[in-house]
């Protein structure tokens, strides 16, 4: 899960990584008392930052520096509630502005090259990562951050203070590394890590991604969000409930509401990406993306189908997957049929799937289609995924 800057900074604070005094605002400021933000953040300059999950906020005008108290609330109110590039701004962070003399870049994540954690470090922070000279330092879980391997500290701070600065920076990185390990993070990035006029270090931004796979041992209390960082839709919330009390199979754990009109139920990770690629390539617009895998009981697939088909103005539905190794096709596809019987859709339906008991499942689907007058086609793996998608394109047009 991607965290907002203010959430990341709270985590930083818990691990004693220096951050600035700040206030999070979650609604437009009306009364004078509400507007008095600068009271809680003393100073003469403030930074007002929209909380979004997508980057490049500075370039998009979502970060404002304000030099007058009265303007703080004005800028907050301009940002809050706005929709930018598909993201709704529901929170704004107000921070004291500090004078800085230099910016560093620090990022800890996992690398497919070293196949372990890695520290990316640069003395030239604050700019696009493509423009920096970045050193890549492999880290080892349970061990301290090694030497930062740069001889250029004097360029930042002069000969006299270079050792002191190096020690200070190492210290902050060591704390970030501890946070990264303790909280099972996938990414912990500070860009920039600023050096203030008084020689202190401070994290001016926080980019944090948690590892969802570790949620069984991490108790996060951040508000739920979908993959786009916005509030979850009805379908996204409902699909998540399917697996809550019955661990058999994985059904609807991934659900994305999309702006199109083709309902999609995918089975199995890799083949489903091929199917989505084909849908997009042949000009159809998916209304959602969701998947099931493993060996779920039929009522779970039924529920997932109900959720997908609940969307209005659908033009077609496709249930698509590869040849399963062990998923029982009669069990899973009978759930699909039961939901169709309830909803009785008038648009084309394409099923492409294979695996144990597919022949029986195909006969079951075709019989139900005949009895109920559905425009339904069933393919097994002798028809390629691409051709199954093409069939839907043909039927929808």
């Amino acid at each position, binding site marked *: 899960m*991607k965290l907002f800057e203010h959430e990341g900074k709270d985590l930083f604070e818990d691990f004693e990584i220096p951050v600035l005094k700040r206030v999070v605002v979650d609604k437009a400021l009306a009364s004078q008392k509400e507007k008095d933000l600068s009271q809680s953040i003393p100073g003469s300059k403030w930074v007002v930052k929209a909380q979004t*999950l*997508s980057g490049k906020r500075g370039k998009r005008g979502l970060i404002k520096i304000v030099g007058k108290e009265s303007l703080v609330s004005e800028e907050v109110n301009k940002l809050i509630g706005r929709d930018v*590039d*598909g993201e709704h701004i529901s929170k704004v962070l107000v921070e004291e502005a500090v004078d800085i003399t230099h910016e560093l870049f620090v990022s800890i994540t*996992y*690398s*497919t*090259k070293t*196949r*372990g*954690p890695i520290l990316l470090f640069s003395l030239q922070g604050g700019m696009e*990562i*493509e423009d920096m000279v970045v050193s890549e330092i492999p880290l*080892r*879980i*349970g061990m301290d951050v090694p030497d930062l391997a740069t001889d250029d500290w004097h360029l930042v701070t002069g000969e006299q203070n270079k050792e002191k600065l190096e020690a200070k920076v190492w210290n902050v990185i060591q704390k970030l590394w501890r946070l990264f*390990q303790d909280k*099972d993070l*996938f990414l912990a990035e500070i860009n920039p890590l600023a050096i203030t006029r008084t020689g202190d270090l401070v994290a001016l931004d926080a980019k944090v991604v948690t*590892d969802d*796979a*570790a949620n*069984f*041992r991490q108790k996060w209390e951040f508000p739920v969000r979908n*993959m*786009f*960082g916005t509030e979850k839709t009805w379908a996204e919330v409902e699909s998540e409930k399917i697996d809550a009390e019955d661990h058999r199979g994985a059904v609807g754990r*991934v659900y*994305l509401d999309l702006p199109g009109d083709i309902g999609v139920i995918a*089975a*199995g*990770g*890799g*083949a*489903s*990406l*091929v199917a*989505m*690629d*084909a*849908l*997009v*390539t042949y000009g159809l617009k*998916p209304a959602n*993306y969701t*998947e099931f895998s493993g060996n779920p009981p039929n009522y779970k697939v039924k529920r997932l189908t109900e959720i997908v088909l609940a969307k209005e103005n659908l033009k077609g539905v496709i249930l698509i*997957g*590869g*040849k*399963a*190794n*062990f998923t029982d096709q009669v069990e899973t596809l009978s759930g699909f049929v039961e939901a169709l019987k309830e909803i009785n859709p008038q648009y084309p339906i394409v099923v492409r799937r294979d*695996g*144990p008991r597919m022949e029986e499942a195909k006969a079951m689907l075709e019989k139900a289609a005949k009895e109920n007058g559905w425009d339904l086609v069933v393919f097994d*793996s002798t028809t*390629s*995924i*691409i*051709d199954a998608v093409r069939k839907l394109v043909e039927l929808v047009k």
Partner: protein
Amino acid sequence: MLDRLNKNTQVIVQGITGKEGQRVTEFMQSMNVKVVAGVRPGKAGEEVLGVPVFDTVKAARAEFPEALVSCVYVPPQFVLGAVKEALNAGIKLMHIIGEGIPVKDTAEMLAACNEQGAKIIGPASLGIVIPEEFKLGQLMGTENTSVMPGSVGIISRSGGMSSELANILTQAGIGQSMVVHVGGDFLIGTTPAEVLEFFETDAKTEKVLMVGEVGGGYEREVVELIKTGGFTKPLVVFLAGAFVESLPQQVPLGHAGAIIQGEADTRQAKIKSLEEVGAKIAEKPDEIVDLLSVVSSQ
């Protein structure tokens, strides 16, 4: 280690008494694989599908000292411990099916394996199949006729696509030397480039089909390997992921590995760099069979 897998390879199943453990045992037995022992603490002396159960990997190996390969079939939170146990008992190749293993645990396992000269296939892998000879894991289930012996090596990041494509090739009369599902997680123990290195030296393999996904740097390693002469046989590549790139933001879909991490990892960039080193790219799965027939060994 891949070169040592054959019909005589002995396999230990960790977590054999669980539902998944039993199923994988059944799948391997369907290809007459020598599953010699199972492990489950507290269940020593029992039998699962005719396989004796031991309390520890060490105890199992005391009885079967030639067994150097294990299947790890325990819940995600216990995988790291199971791998450490296997390493301490001298296991040299572990297959991990589990999805949803924290990346930190995987990193720790890989570092430990590195130190002890052992390898992991996975996590989130369905395993390896040598048609009519050997199976590690549950690839193809009991449907062993979806594969047939031949000269095409298959490497895939996706389990579903591994079975799908092996099946398509078999139907087209193209046999396979080995099918390896390396796993879909962000960090994996055996990378596509490492499998290619094996295929380079494998006499049975004449050409290779590789299925990649958007995201991660594993295809870049393949490009480097070919550039430096580490792989010289004909290679056909199929890359999924046009849909993910049509989405507004980073969205992990299907597998954690499908997170686009910067320009070099996009589909188009990958296709371009692979084409530059001579790989043939199948834009759609339909084109794979034709491309495999066209490319020939030097």
